[in-house]
């Protein structure tokens, strides 16, 4: 028998494991003795920021997580809220959607292709482990400037990783967002979202119930990869030494994942599975502890049975490995063979590695020796929780200062429009999404390129329904830096507005909160403000927060990223054939602007690009107006009154009108002629980013204006579609902008490829 030779476990080693002295004392208290090396490893990962949410829990608790609507068969009811693998919301017809977004920032910075790929793999497992078939993915990406060759390489690598994995597993990637900013030069963001479909009464949870039930390990073999990978990487700042103490980065195996999806869904159909969870961060440890903790049980495990890829893995390594594509299942005792046979048919390893016990302890044996014996709850449910000090950033006043009166007006509006369309943040992301399979599974009604994606709902047995889900992921990090509360409110509002532009009603949201080091009071203030904004907006719009993820320590050499609370909104449309697209679909329609344009240039793309200034207050958000606007869109699109609706976002009205002209099918290009009468400065009219605005095209402007008035939504007919130019001017005066659409389109299309081709 191999003798276990492990380092001396003491306070110093605990510190090396990222545990504080107070946490070490707490471990001694819980155990009544010093932990074994394996136990120390377990405490260290389970109590890491990544797994325990110790700095964020007090704030996240305040979020609205259930819909006001009841009971459970009603559309919009939250069936599973935060805490499980992902959140679940009823969509009627006995169906539910399950979705979540998660970060894979640090791994993607170190190895962009594999880091992004394993991010996609992880979020898929969160979704299908609950019994849902994953049907649509989104991704939110942030890089440093494309002028930096390293960031061109990172962009390429990340996109190859997301595509390589998502395409192989047969899940459509239907949308996302991508932006570039100096603040991400040392720390890119890769947030991956997935949504799955499940029968509402067949949702599986990660729980180890039933005394004596077998615990099954299924999927890839365990290797030495990623020990302290995701968990510790995501729980500490980056510095120049990160490369030296790098853990082994995991490589994704989408083929195994695809087989796992099918095998797990088949296993769940047998009716003998009582609980299932993926092995994500902290691998076997985290999944077994969480499953036991949720069920109030214990687990007894024999590590020698774990399928192993490498020779001589120690118990510490077996417990902490973050090898990908692995699942943990609990089945009814005596019926496990049915499940094992299914995995065998898919040529996947599946082994009974333990049993459920009743004493609330985790007992792990290795080579006949007990290497772990700890109570489950103090490790899992009762992990440390900190209310960290917060402080308003010293320079916040400076950030928010902007004197519009002294700001030189735009002298070349057409040039500004071209410059905006060419800028990486606004330019076409087609170079990215053309590399994603956006229509596998045959449900994509609107793929990437519009405001929100639209995915028809088809039952697992292949029966199509008329319903569709609208999906959008959004955040304006600059706004969040200028005012984290207002910026986060705006992110929720924009995501919901994008969803509403298809005709869908916003249902619920998930979020990924990417921030710097929470131990710094200024960062913690940003975080708390952002969570407050998230809660306020979610409550006002009636879209509960059903799942989410926090990514702290997005800093390099002491410089934090802008606060980046990514919001992904899911909406529901009753009839997928009755939807609106975001581009003009016909000539001769009236162009109507819903919402009001105010003199707001703070935090705008125009200000950053043309005045080299990132300052001011972000535009105000009126959540009551937003809600009315979303309702108006849903009603008028369902009534066939509105053919196209496009959110006015970054770059303002001029950019939105240009996009309406050329983001449709390749051979469809429709210009418009628009007159703006508001009495505010022209550059704010053209490029200001006032929220709550949507450009719609309609064949019956009078009817639409009447509906808008009845709904209390400001609306004004501003022009008509047609021709091959974009013409915008003051009412009755010479045009500010009069450019051929083809020119605008070429600029928009080439913005990113052009930069990638450069040396």
């Amino acid at each position, binding site marked *: 028998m191999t003798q276990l030779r492990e380092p001396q476990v003491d306070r110093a080693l605990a510190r090396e494991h990222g545990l504080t002295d107070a946490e070490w004392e707490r471990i001694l208290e819980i155990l009544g003795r010093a932990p074994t090396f394996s136990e120390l490893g377990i405490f260290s990962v389970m109590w890491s920021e990544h797994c325990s949410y110790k700095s964020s829990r007090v704030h996240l608790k305040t979020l609205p997580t259930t819909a006001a609507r009841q009971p459970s068969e009603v559309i919009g009811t939250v069936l599973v809220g935060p805490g499980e693998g992902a959140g679940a919301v009823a969509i009627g017809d006995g169906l539910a959607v399950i979705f979540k977004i998660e970060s894979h920032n640090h791994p993607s910075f*170190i*190895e962009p292709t*594999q880091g992004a790929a394993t991010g996609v793999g992880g979020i898929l497992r969160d979704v299908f482990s609950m019994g849902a078939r994953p049907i649509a993915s989104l991704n939110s990406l942030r890089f440093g400037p494309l002028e930096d060759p390293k960031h061109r390489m990172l962009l390429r690598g990340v996109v190859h990783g997301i595509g390589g994995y998502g395409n192989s597993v047969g899940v459509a990637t239907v949308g996302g967002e991508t932006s570039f900013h100096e603040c991400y030069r040392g720390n890119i963001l890769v947030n991956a979202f997935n949504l799955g479909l499940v029968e509402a009464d067949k949702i599986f949870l990660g729980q180890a119930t039933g005394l004596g039930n077998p615990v099954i390990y299924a999927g*890839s073999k365990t*290797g*030495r*990869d990623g020990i302290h990978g995701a968990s510790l990487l995501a729980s500490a700042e980056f510095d120049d030494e990160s*490369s030296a103490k*790098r853990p*082994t*980065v*995991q*490589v*994704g*195996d989408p*083929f*195994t994942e695809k087989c796992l999806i099918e095998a797990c869904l088949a296993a769940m159909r047998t009716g003998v599975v009582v609980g299932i969870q993926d092995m994500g961060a902290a691998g076997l440890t985290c999944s077994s502890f969480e499953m036991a903790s949720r069920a109030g049980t214990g687990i007894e495990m024999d590590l020698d049975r774990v399928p192993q*890829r*490498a020779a001589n893995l120690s118990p510490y390594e077996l417990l902490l490995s973050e*090898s*990908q594509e692995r699942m943990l299942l609990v089945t009814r005792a005596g019926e496990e063979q049915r499940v094992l046979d299914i995995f065998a048919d898919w*040529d996947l390893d599946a082994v009974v590695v333990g049993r459920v016990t009743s004493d609330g302890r985790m007992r792990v044996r290795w080579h006949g020796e007990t290497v772990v014996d700890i109570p489950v709850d103090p490790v899992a449910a009762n992990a440390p929780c900190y209310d960290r000090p917060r402080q308003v950033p010293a320079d916040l006043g400076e950030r928010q200062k902007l004197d519009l009166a002294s700001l030189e007006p735009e002298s070349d509006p057409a040039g500004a429009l071209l410059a905006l369309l060419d800028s990486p943040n606004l330019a076409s992301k087609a170079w990215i999404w053309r590399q994603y399979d956006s229509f596998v599974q045959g449900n994509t009604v609107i793929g990437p390129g519009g405001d929100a994606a639209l995915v028809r709902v088809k039952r697992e047995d292949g029966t199509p329904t008329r319903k569709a889900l609208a999906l959008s992921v959004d955040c304006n990090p600059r706004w969040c830096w200028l005012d984290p509360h207002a910026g986060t409110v705006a992110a929720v509002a924009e995501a919901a507005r994008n969803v509403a532009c298809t005709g869908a009603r916003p249902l619920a949201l998930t979020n990924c909160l990417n921030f710097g080091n929470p131990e710094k009071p200024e960062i913690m203030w940003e975080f708390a403000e952002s969570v407050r904004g998230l809660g306020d907006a979610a409550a006002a719009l009636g879209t509960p927060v059903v799942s989410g993820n926090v990514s702290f320590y997005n800093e390099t050499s002491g410089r934090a990223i802008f606060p980046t609370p990514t919001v992904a909104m899911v909406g529901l449309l009753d009839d997928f054939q009755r939807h609106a697209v975001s581009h003009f679909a016909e000539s001769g329609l009236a162009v109507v602007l819903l919402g009001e344009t105010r003199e707001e240039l703070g935090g705008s793309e125009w200000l950053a690009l043309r005045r080299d200034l990132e300052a001011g207050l972000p535009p105000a958000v009126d959540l009551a107006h937003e809600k009315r606007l979303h309702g108006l869109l849903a009603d008028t699109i369902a009534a066939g009154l509105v053919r196209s609706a496009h959110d006015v976002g970054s770059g303002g009205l001029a950019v939105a009108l240009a996009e309406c002209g050329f983001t449709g099918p390749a051979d469809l290009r429709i210009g418009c002629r628009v007159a703006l009468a508001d009495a505010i400065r022209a550059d704010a009219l053209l490029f200001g980013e006032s929220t709550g605005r949507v450009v719609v095209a309609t064949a019956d402007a009078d009817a639409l204006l009447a509906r808008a008035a009845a709904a209390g939504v400001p609306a004004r007919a501003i022009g008509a579609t047609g021709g091959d130019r974009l013409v915008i001017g003051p009412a009755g005066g010479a045009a500010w902008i009069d450019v051929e659409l083809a020119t605008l389109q070429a600029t928009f299309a080439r913005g990113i490829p052009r930069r990638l081709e450069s040396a």
Partner: protein
Amino acid sequence: MKAVVCVTLKPDVLDPQGRAIQRACATLGWDGVADVRQGKYFEIQLQTTDRAAAERMARELCEKLLANPVIEDWRIERIEG
């Protein structure tokens, strides 16, 4: 001169391709195939006639472009020409 370079995944890193090939061998009845690791192979034509210079260039290429040191090892198999 020509440099021949091989880039392989580090031993502890999962090699899904190699594993899939090994499994395929087993199902095809080639039981004797115990393990397969797949890597990349490069033939690089260098505009130099100096062996040492060629080796230096090849090494730099491997370090900066052909391999990601986080997951891959590289080896200059030979310099010929």
